[in-house]
């Protein structure tokens, strides 16, 4: 096998609850600090302890952030999944196992290299404490990998020291365990392997972080003050992060009091109710949730649409339907979110593709929600939300001023003859609102029942329709306000991909692969709903479009069919929905097959 420098996949199979995630995180970060583009995906079970878990690290010289579909070196720490893990290794790859115990001789392969390292044995000799023995085994394979892959040991040590900055006494043990693995590998194996690391400078100006953390940071920077939530995987860490940021940056230095209020609600119906109460009362408020929570919020989402109350909802999508697979990723809430709740409703959606966009779209979501006086849903997913991604460093525009939308001030209300809450005075479908407790002239009654343009209760067909038609116009106004799509296109190319969210990394890699094979394909990634003009234009410009998304029912395609003028024959679906993040292979093969069949010009 030829040397594969900075271009391979390490997969670590373990049992959850044994502390391996911590070790794996260190490994990934060390590679990142060596300046090499890297991405990690954590596949963990929906339980707390004792079930199989995998961590997959892709090292990619070219900076591809999707899964590659390969496994070049497997660290097989879980006897329960050993057979499967062995089978998973790509031909020519390596499998590292704990040789303390005998390997099942039935299970072997000739086309890969097996590396046995007596991890448990070495660790048990060095450590007394049971806990330490379990934990240090993971650190020990780190050491072995360092030797095998030529990982910069200084970087690893530095990282360890930072990690345990306030637990100095743990540092020595960890270093020891690393050393054990490192030395054993050095002595017994042919180090480094042909697949190995070499320092680069490709990660400067980048950070490694997950989307929930940056979405939370976006909420802080957007000036959100009220957060209400009910715990649900994979959205929980969003509110955890918000809390931690607020504890640091949102405490009044003089009084020690909080400039925010987080309520752990009794369920998602209450969480969204709290957000609406706060939004009605003029605070920027949000709730993070996932599919089941979104289903529960439906009645209130319809209420917010009709009563025109701003709200921001983060739906960190996981595999549905129902409870589904809480620790797997999917993009299957699109259609449901777009038309959530009974009656004629249409919502504003944002689709981030990576953690950096989670930050920016969080800020945008609050601006849009207040500008449009409606709930805005940010549809991220487990892959974006919980995995660490390498993204360009964020910049903050100090000139940013939150768009609080059309809210009459005390002064304006004072000077006003009469205030009509639901009248379209500017022709954009957006009416002016007033906040409670500001001025008697602003008083009106907010209701989810029929109301006229003044806000009065009505059962009259024309008065009702007047408001409903304006809501439709307001939604049209949103088209120009949601983030524009990201387009990568060349003139004259007539085949395009339309995709969304976390498919982005796989699509970009697929485009390069296709181009290398001589097939030029253009690309548009939608970032908001309702679709803006650019989406319509891209569709018009192309003769054949592949719609790439992660769900069974082609939901993005459905939205395109419903909300653009696209002709059905133009669209071909490429779907991936087993719960693992998409990789480029299904896109490349899907497109090549279709083109071979002559489906596109």
């Amino acid at each position, binding site marked *: 096998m030829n040397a594969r420098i900075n271009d391979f996949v390490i997969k670590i199979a373990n049992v959850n609850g044994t502390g391996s995630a911590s070790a794996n995180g260190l490994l990934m970060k060390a590679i990142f*600090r060596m300046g090499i583009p890297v991405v990690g995906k954590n596949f963990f079970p929906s339980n707390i302890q004792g079930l199989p878990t995998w961590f997959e690290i892709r090292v990619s010289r070219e900076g591809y952030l999707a899964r590659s579909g390969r496994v070049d070196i497997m660290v097989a720490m879980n006897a329960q999944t050993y057979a499967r893990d062995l089978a998973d290794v790509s031909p020519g790859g390596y499998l590292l196992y704990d040789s303390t115990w005998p390997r099942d001789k039935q299970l072997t392969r000739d086309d890969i290299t097996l590396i046995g390292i007596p991890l448990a044995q070495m660790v048990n000799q060095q450590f007394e404490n049971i806990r330490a023995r379990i934990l240090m085994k993971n650190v020990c394979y780190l050491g072995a990998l360092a030797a095998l892959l030529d990982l910069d040991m200084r970087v690893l040590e530095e990282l360890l020291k930072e990690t345990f900055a306030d637990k100095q006494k743990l540092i020595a043990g960890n270093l020891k365990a690393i050393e054990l693995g490192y030395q054993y590998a050095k002595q017994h194996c042919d180090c480094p392997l042909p697949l190995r690391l070499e320092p680069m400078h490709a990660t400067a100006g980048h950070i*490694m972080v997950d989307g929930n953390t940056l979405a939370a*940071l976006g909420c*802080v*920077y957007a*000036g959100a*003050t*009220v957060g*209400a939530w009910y715990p649900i995987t994979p959205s929980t860490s969003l509110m955890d992060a918000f809390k931690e940021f607020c504890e640091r*940056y*949102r405490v*009044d230095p003089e009084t020690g*009091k*909080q*400039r*925010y*209020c987080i*309520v752990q609600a*009794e369920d998602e*119906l*209450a*969480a969204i*109710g*709290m*957000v609406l*109460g*706060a*939004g*009605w*009362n*003029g*605070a920027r*408020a949000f709730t993070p949730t996932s599919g089941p929570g979104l289903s529960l919020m439906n*009645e*209130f989402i319809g*209420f917010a649409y009709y009563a025109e109350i701003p709200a921001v909802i983060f739906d960190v999508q996981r595999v549905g339907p129902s409870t589904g697979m809480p620790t797997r990723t999917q993009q299957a809430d699109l259609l449901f979110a777009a038309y959530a709740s009974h009656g004629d409703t249409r919502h504003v959606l944002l689709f981030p593709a990576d953690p950096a966009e989670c930050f920016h779209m969080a800020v945008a979501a609050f601006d849009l929600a207040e500008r449009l006086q409606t709930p805005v849903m940010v549809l991220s997913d487990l892959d974006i939300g919980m995995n660490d991604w390498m993204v360009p*460093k*964020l*910049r*903050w525009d*100090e000139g940013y001023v939150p768009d609080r939308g059309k809210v009459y001030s005390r002064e304006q209300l004072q000077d006003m003859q009469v205030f009509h809450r639901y009248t379209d005075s500017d022709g954009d479908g957006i009416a002016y609102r*007033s*906040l*409670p*407790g500001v*001025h*008697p002239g*602003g*008083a*009106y*009654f*907010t*209701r*989810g*029942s029929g109301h*006229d343009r*003044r806000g*009065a*209760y009505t*059962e009259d067909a024309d008065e009702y329709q007047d408001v409903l038609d304006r809501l439709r116009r307001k939604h049209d106004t949103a088209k120009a306000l949601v983030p524009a799509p990201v387009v990568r296109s060349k003139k004259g190319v007539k085949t395009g991909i339309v995709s969304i969210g976390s498919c982005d990394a796989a699509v970009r890699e697929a485009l390069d692969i296709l181009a290398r094979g001589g097939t030029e394909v253009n690309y548009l990634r939608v970032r908001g709903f309702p679709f803006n003009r650019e989406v319509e234009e891209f569709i018009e410009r192309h003769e054949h479009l592949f719609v790439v998304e992660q769900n069974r029912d082609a939901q993005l395609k459905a939205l395109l069919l419903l909300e653009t003028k696209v002709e059905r024959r133009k669209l071909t679906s490429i779907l991936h929905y087993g719960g693992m993040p998409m990789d480029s292979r299904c896109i490349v093969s899907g497109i090549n097959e279709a083109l071979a069949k002559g489906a596109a010009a």
Partner: protein
Amino acid sequence: MSFMQKPRVSHSQLPRNELGLTTRDYEGSMSTLCAGCGHDSITAALIQAFWELNIEPYKVAKMSGIGCSSKTPAYFLAEAHGINAVHGRMPSIATGANAADRNLYYLGVSGDGDSLSIGFGQFAHALRRNINMLYIIENNGVYGLTKGQFSASADVGSKAKKGEVNQQPPIDPVIAALTLGGSFVARSFSGDKGQLVPLIKAGIMHNGFALLDVLSPCVTFNDHEDSTKSYAHTRQFYHPAVHADFVPQKKPIRAAYDDGESMPVELHDGSTVVLRKVSKDYNPTNRARAYSYLHEHQKRGEIVTGLLYIDEDQREMHDISNTVSAALRDLPYAELCPGSAALEEIQNLYR
């Protein structure tokens, strides 16, 4: 409906409060409830109480769910913002509104269906969080707006309009509030303005969640002994809903009685409830005693009214959360945004 707006004329002869306002300034639009509905009496008491408290109407946020009772916030404090949530979910709206601005007065109006059936979970949890608000349940034992089904507060043995007899033990909001950790628990009767107004005032001024359960007879769906029902009675079992819509006009029931007294009150259907007002020396600061007191009188068939429990020391949500004293919604953006230097600092963690 628009034509229901009351004319706003100045009533120079009416007494004025410290703000120079008359009770008319605390009214809302015309009620669309049935003539004689207990809920309208509570509306009147609310108007009186806010007037007496010299609270500027626009400093109040009126919140409700869905039901006849939940419609009433439209009928008082025309100058206050109001919000009709979805059915049973007012407590969460109230919690969020209060989170955004702790400095307004919060008044929630609900029904027994709204709070004890669909909304029981939210009710219990808002109470547990000790949201600073007055929470009134206009309790009539039925779902008025959907035409008279039993609610969870219907007493065992009470009869529905259709003759069905309730057989399930009722949920008593007062006992629930008491045993779920409520910091202010009171009960009154819609017809007893003398007791109701002070309890409303106390509840508004209480620093925390004040539950006020108000028995409020539904004149329409308690009329099963009435000949009206038979008017629309058609052969055998066919009673199309739309065919039986006669609602007689009735007078609201009034009741006034002294502390410590018991008082039988005849309802519109001819049945009687016995109210017992706690005596002057009743000590409302002992939770367990309050429970046994209630339980004891309940066994005697008496419904105890008055301020039954209060704990002024229980901290309300913001005190527990240690929130700044200004309204969060009014904080200047500069106090909320950590700025670009902090962003730099934060991002160093992700390298």
